[in-house]
């Protein structure tokens, strides 16, 4: 359902929920996940209902994900990079009381 205009190009990998995602230079995390067919990025902190990319320009804060352990980051405003570990954002942020 999603494809690239340029059939070939340099690629690199990161993971989403442990699954390998292939990205290209210039991709935001949101773009690479969209290209991989992943639309369900988090649970609403209010109702728990799923949310995904909406505006792709940093306005709506719907594409929040956890990146390398840091919660609530905008997937559309964060460049994809090799080796990142991205996870779905579930509910309120867990803060470890050390």
């Amino acid at each position: 359902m999603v494809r690239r205009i340029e059939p070939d190009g340099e690629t690199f990998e990161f993971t989403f929920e442990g699954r390998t995602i292939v990205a290209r230079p210039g991709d935001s995390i949101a773009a690479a996940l969209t290209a991989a067919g992943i639309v369900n990025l988090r649970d609403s902190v209010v109702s728990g209902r799923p949310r995904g990319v909406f505006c792709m320009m940093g306005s709506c804060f719907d594409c929040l994900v956890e990146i390398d352990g840091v919660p609530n980051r905008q997937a559309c405003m964060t460049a994809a990079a090799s080796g990142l570990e991205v996870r779905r954002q579930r509910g309120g942020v867990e803060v470890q009381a050390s």
Partner: protein
Amino acid sequence: MKSCDIAVIGAGPAGLAAATRAADLGYDTVLLDEQPSPGGQIYRAVETADHARTEVMGADYARGRAIVDAFRASGAAYMDGALVWNISTDRVIDFSRGGASSQLSAKRIIVATGAVERPWPLPGWTLPGVTTAGALQILMKASGIVQEDAVLAGSGPLLWLVAAQLVDAGAPPRAVVETTPRAHYRAALAQLPAALRAPGYLAKGWRMMRKVKRAGVRHFAGAENIAIEGADAASAIRFTAKGASERIEASSIALHQGVVPNQQITRLLRCDHAWDAAQQCFRPVTDEDGQSSVQEVYVAGDGAGIGGALSAALHGEITALAIAARDGRGDPARLKSLRAERARDAAVRPFLETLYAPAPHVTAPADDTIVCRCEEVTAGAIREAVNLGAPGPNQVKSFLRAGMGPCQGRVCGPVVSAIIAERRGETPGATGYYRIRPPLKPIPLSELAQFTIPDAPEDR
């Protein structure tokens, strides 16, 4: 603390043109932009898009390259990835860049933060798979990613542009579901002769629509009662058109109802704003050259009122020249000719504004429809708060948490004001808007804590 003569915020056509001209005029100019490369949303990634992608996006997109190149060649400093999160009354800008915050003190500020899509709350619009039409376009521009079998719903030139670009990319959308009320076509006819004076727009629009229709894309006109179905993601769009109920299965549904000025910074600065009845949106009160009601704060481009990319670039340069003119510098002849050119370009606006004014149902969602996506506040709850006597959006915000989520009311603000205005029987201008407070976007508490306020002498 660093300081400069002119700080420009936003690297779309207006900001780039303003910064380029200001630097050429000898002003110490800094441009701050949140994106990784210049161009704004309209010319997003225009420097790196290859030939194939540029072909799909079209000549209007390719034109952005020259604007970006001119900026790169200018003496303006460029701070990419810079999130402006607060501005003080004496024009000290707090911004976050690379995980740390710092300050820039500016003698003048040109706000060039462009437009955002007009919110269109409808049942199911929070489901994954539902995006703005702009989002589909950004995916194409920035990553060459094409959504196949999308359904585009709503109204406005961008709806047809994205449809045409998808056709050119070999992925024609499954359908274009247009909400433009039939009556708007009749009303817009009166504006047609004036619109023909603006060079090229109407012919271009007509060619776009023809391309989409020739590609076999289904087109529904006058659609109403739109809703999106799906459990954990969008699966279909329902609507009525010509008296018939329609349902189209789709996993990608892109919504569009035109664009409105992005008010976050001008509201933060407490610039005066007015309701623009023609454009059906708030905009900061400015003079022709972009001077706002706040001393030394200017607004250039779509943020001052929707005029489109060409107009924005002209306006950016006009603002820089107008500032110079106040200082007894610059190029009065060029300023005059740019103003005239911008006025000619604007001749198409009344036609577009009449034709693509949002249908009444766009700004009056049903009671059970979520309006504030962050806090999941429904239209019905907002109406109830008004019944309780809430005099405006700020009381509604404090009663219901509408606009208190991470997006800070960016998405819901215009509709919340519209719903309250309708209930109170007044214009949104009389109702007012959310008060915008820092940080403009969430920043880590650790970053704020480490952000010391240096009173050291200027090092720039």
